[in-house]
């Protein structure tokens, strides 16, 4: 299979941007280990059971919280859909009752962190992202600049934003423009 290249390779230019001093925001990228969508119908949980077991997951999870194991991170994005980041090839679990789709080339991960990361998010989405409302391990599906994204709160001030690859550059630009007033550090390697 073709090598997965970063759509952000031209954008990830290390440096300090905006006002001098301590940066409120840090932006970088991360190569996904592999991204899969598992989708099914009414019997989704049963149909997905063997794939879940192979990933070390005991349930399909909730719509609010990501599930992380040694080899995977899973987001329950709809009643009968699971998005899974894993280096394992899940194609073998494709069946009559489970549609497995390789999205590894279709999403780019932007890493947003820093003491002002939540301030930046609250400028871009109309959702409460205060520490009490958007906790570590939680995720949101929403739109940034009219592009559908998934935002995962990895740590108190660390977020990963999954952006469609074809919109990764413009998503990055929106984040960068809005981050500048806080002082911004870009790291080419996470």
């Amino acid at each position, binding site marked *: 299979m073709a090598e997965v290249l970063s759509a952000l390779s031209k954008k990830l230019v290390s440096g300090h941007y905006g006002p001098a001093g301590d940066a409120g925001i840090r932006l970088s990228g991360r190569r996904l280990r592999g991204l899969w969508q598992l989708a099914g119908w009414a019997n989704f949980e049963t149909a997905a059971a063997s794939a879940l077991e192979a990933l070390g997951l005991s349930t399909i999870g909730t719509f609010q919280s990501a599930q992380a194991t040694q080899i995977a991170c899973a987001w329950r*994005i*709809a009643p009968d859909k699971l998005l899974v980041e894993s280096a394992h090839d899940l194609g073998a679990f494709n069946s009559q009752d489970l549609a497995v789709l390789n999205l590894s080339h279709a999403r780019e991960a932007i890493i947003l962190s820093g003491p002002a990361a939540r301030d930046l998010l609250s400028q871009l989405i109309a959702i409460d992202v205060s520490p009490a409302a958007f906790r570590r391990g939680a995720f949101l599906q929403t*739109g940034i600049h009219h592009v559908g994204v998934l935002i995962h709160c990895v740590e108190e001030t660390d977020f990963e934003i999954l952006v469609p690859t074809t919109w990764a550059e413009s998503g990055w630009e929106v984040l960068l423009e809005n981050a500048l007033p806080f002082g911004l550090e870009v790291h080419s390697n996470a």
Partner: protein
Amino acid sequence: MIRINCPVCGLRNETEFTYGADATVNRPALDEQETGPWLDYVFNRDNPRGWHKEYWHHVQGCRQWLVLERNTLTHEIRGCRLAREAGE
């Protein structure tokens, strides 16, 4: 402004959704021979002042189709279900 309580995503701003269609319309039986019911099904819609059932799509969210009960006069919303469950 309308805020919609998506069963998957929780309470969200209207800007994440798009209106789909009137959710009160039922397709006639496929062996229906009269033209009247087909005319109503394809073209004729009520435009009520007050409560109405509507399909909305959470396009910038979970991408699920929803059925809302919306008051066309006040924009109040009193119910929101996944369309897949609304017929149950």
